[in-house]
């Protein structure tokens, strides 16, 4: 596909037109379900359309102009979806803020994006923005989704979403054709979304995603993974992240499937079992958690159950091995698998809520191939895909007909992927962003002659399958001159049920060391079972038994690597980290640079 070709879905070349097409043609069909106090409430396309219209026009009545930025700071909920489309349809630019961001980050995001309006989920999010509003000159109004505890709020800068919708209704009555005018005004080159990325150096940069980028990516998801109107999706990742936004909002608009929004991150495991999604996207952290959940449950179960599981999984692996190599599965194995599935595996899938899934998809972080293999062995096809915010999501994707374990798949339809002389992955796609918000220099640095320089090192095999090696800046060159890709080692470590995350260190050092974050639940349980005395998290991390346990896990991983790639020493991160800590990304990954700085003295001791 040439980069200038126009792209359209159902004759709509912009998101507002497509969205209004859905609202007009499927008005009574359910689009969103949201769990509130344990009950799943339904919202049709008509509801979504009405809310978006009222919110959009309400913002207009308050002075939102085309290409003005509006920020939303909230966990995933229906208001997020409604507001997103409301902003986009009247020509605004929607920027997501993570609910876990600190007031300082909020201040930076508002100022960098020049946000005029700010949507705050609740009291907590409101307090953050109120703390910094004296230093955010562009900010005009703050709109609050959930007014619980704010009945007495008297602040002329703040209003509730209900008040905003009321303004929108009044405005609509006075200007009845305004809404459709704005929808028609949308042009494919308009920026609709800012997504902030941490980038390699410096402060977060706002990636400008255009109407055209988005329409292209919506067709791309459909081509790669196929989502049907009958599909149920589970929405649980933050929408400020490009993956969450694509899968839970825009792919839903494209496919007319139903997205189910969870009540709370803590209830996710129950919610998924109730929804039984038919297609499911998640990040490696979630897949790892589910795997360790099963591993742990089994430890507590009877000998009989364990041997049943081992046997069923053996059959599952045998079958998966054939499928993954695109070989015919023998009738005998298939029959045996059916029996195992009926007796054992189905129950596991049910407990994970994945029983009805047609496909699983993983991206946003590296994942261990063993983990993907495990899901295949359960009988669940899992496809790894690769992309970046800067290409609006997908660049390469394993698909049913073309897949290879360990690879992130071939370039998706309409996208070119190649390598630079330094083996950096380059992407040319209609999804490549227009640039970074107010940062022409960094834009010119990242996008050169239509090619997006990803900052990832990779390789491409003869059949066009792409393999991502690591982030370019993360490659470790040891004092001995050996090039090492830490993420591969880290992935193997994370596969252990006792290890949540790890950061391998060793750049310009004589050997590799590692900072490890233990899996709190699983290690606590282990400690309890083996009578290891401990009190709090910190003391747990310092017990000899736990250090031995992790040492065994590290040793197991070391055996799979060459001598120079083995971890000689490790330390545990003895603080229980939370999403609000700077050590973690919003998707709960350890930040390599923060860890190496914060724990510098501990790391240096490992080399003393």
């Amino acid at each position, binding site marked *: 596909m040439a980069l200038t070709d126009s792209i359209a879905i159902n004759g709509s070349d912009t998101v507002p037109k497509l969205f209004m097409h859905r609202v007009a043609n499927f008005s009574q069909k359910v689009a969103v379900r949201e769990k509130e106090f344990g009950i799943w409430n339904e919202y049709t396309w008509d509801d979504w359309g009405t809310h978006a219209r009222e919110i959009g026009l309400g913002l207009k009545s308050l002075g939102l102009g085309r290409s003005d930025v509006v920020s939303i700071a909230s966990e995933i909920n229906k208001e997020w979806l409604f507001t997103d489309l409301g902003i986009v349809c009247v020509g605004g630019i929607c920027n997501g803020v993570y609910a876990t961001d600190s007031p300082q980050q909020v201040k930076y995001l508002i100022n960098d994006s020049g946000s005029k309006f700010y949507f705050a989920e609740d009291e907590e999010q409101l307090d953050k923005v109120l703390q910094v509003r004296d230093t955010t000159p562009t900010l005009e109004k703050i709109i609050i989704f959930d007014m619980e505890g704010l009945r007495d709020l008297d602040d002329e800068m703040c209003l509730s979403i209900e008040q905003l919708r009321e303004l929108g209704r009044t405005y609509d009555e006075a200007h009845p054709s305004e809404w459709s005018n704005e929808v028609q005004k949308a042009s494919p080159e308009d920026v609709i979304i800012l997504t902030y990325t941490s980038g390699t150096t410096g402060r977060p940069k706002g990636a400008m995603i255009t109407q055209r980028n988005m329409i292209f990516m919506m067709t791309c998801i459909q081509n790669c993974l196929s989502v049907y109107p009958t599909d149920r999706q589970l929405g649980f990742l933050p929408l400020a992240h490009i993956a969450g936004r694509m899968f839970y909002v825009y792919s839903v608009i494209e496919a007319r499937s139903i997205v189910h929004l969870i009540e709370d991150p803590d209830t996710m495991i129950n919610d998924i079992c109730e929804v039984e999604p038919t297609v499911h996207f998640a990040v490696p952290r979630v897949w790892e958690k589910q795997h360790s959940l099963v591993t742990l449950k089994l430890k507590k179960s009877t000998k009989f159950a364990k041997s049943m599981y081992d046997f069923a999984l053996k059959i599952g692996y045998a079958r998966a091995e054939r499928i993954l190599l695109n070989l015919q599965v023998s009738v005998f194995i298939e029959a045996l698998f059916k029996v195992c599935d009926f007796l054992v595996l189905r129950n596991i899938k049910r407990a994970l809520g994945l029983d009805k899934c047609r496909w699983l998809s993983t991206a946003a972080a590296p994942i261990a191939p063993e983990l993907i293999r495990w899901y295949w062995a359960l009988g669940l096809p899992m496809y790894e895909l690769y992309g970046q915010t800067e290409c609006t999501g997908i660049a390469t994707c394993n698909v049913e007909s073309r897949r290879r374990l360990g690879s992130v798949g071939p370039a998706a339809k309409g996208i070119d992927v190649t390598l630079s002389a330094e083996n950096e992955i380059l992407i040319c796609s209609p999804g490549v962003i227009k640039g970074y918000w107010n940062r022409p220099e960094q834009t010119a640095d990242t996008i050169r002659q239509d090619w997006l320089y990803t900052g990832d090192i990779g390789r491409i095999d003869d059949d066009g399958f792409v393999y991502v090696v690591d982030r370019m800046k993360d490659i470790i060159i040891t004092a001995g001159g050996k090039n090492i890709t830490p993420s591969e080692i880290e992935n193997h470590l994370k596969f252990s049920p006792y290890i949540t995350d790890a950061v391998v260190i060793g750049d310009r050092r004589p050997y590799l060391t590692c900072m490890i974050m233990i899996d709190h639940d699983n290690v*606590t349980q282990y400690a309890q079972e083996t009578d290891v*005395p*401990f*009190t709090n998290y910190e003391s747990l991390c310092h017990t000899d038994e736990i250090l031995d346990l992790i040492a065994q896990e590290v040793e197991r991983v070391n055996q799979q690597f060459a001598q120079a790639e083995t971890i000689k020493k490790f330390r545990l991160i003895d603080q229980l980290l939370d999403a609000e800590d700077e050590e973690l990304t919003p998707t709960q990954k350890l930040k390599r640079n923060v860890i190496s700085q914060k724990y510098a003295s501990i790391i240096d001791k490992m080399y003393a």
Partner: protein
Amino acid sequence: MLESSTLLSVQNIETYYGPVSAVCGVSLVVEQGAIVTVLGANGAGKTTVLKTIAGLMFPAKGMVHFEGENITGIEPDKIVRLGIAHVPEGREVFPLLSTEENLRLGSLNNQLSRLDVVYEYFPILQKHRKLSAGFLSGGQQQMLAIGRALMQTPRLIMFDEPSLGLSPKLVHEISEIITRINTEQSVSILLVEQNAKMALQVAQYGYILEQGRVVMENTCERLSASTDVKEFYLGMKEAGVRGQRRWKRRKTWR
């Protein structure tokens, strides 16, 4: 194996009520002569820890050592004879017996001389020595329960929420008595409390239990300074920008 100054050491006890685990792997130490407090919300497992030490409940796992001796699973009466007194939650005095009869019940071999010690601490009990314990006020009943524990010359007294249902003035009095008993009688004290403010003032070292696990342990001075303890146990919140704040931070326990 234990240091000489360690009086009581609890290692990894797990205690169940039927299939429900109330305490899952709690370890704590009471040094000779110390006041140690265990804080926690309702259902955190505080009382269960005391009951397990007192021998009223049998731990599924773990060990309790007293003066270096393993006392796990020993009959409650033997534990009392070793010198551990338990002041139960809600006082549990015998309402139909008189005050003095209640006190005599606490004595191991009817050492009535101890009565004078108790009456010295709680003159009001002497005044009502013939009165049925059921007619005593809540505060007096609490004093009676403490007095009953003192009767046996214990080495360790375990208090289970002595401030329960008492007026602030009485809470203050009881806390002073606890400190006095600790110094004057050289009795170590394990104090379980919901009244975190009082407990952190009285004790030197504290453990915080949540859902059957220790999430934090430190000196009371440090605990009182921790933001989590301040917000969740002492009710001290930074007021926030609007002068009020209802939402809660996530607990991190550090």
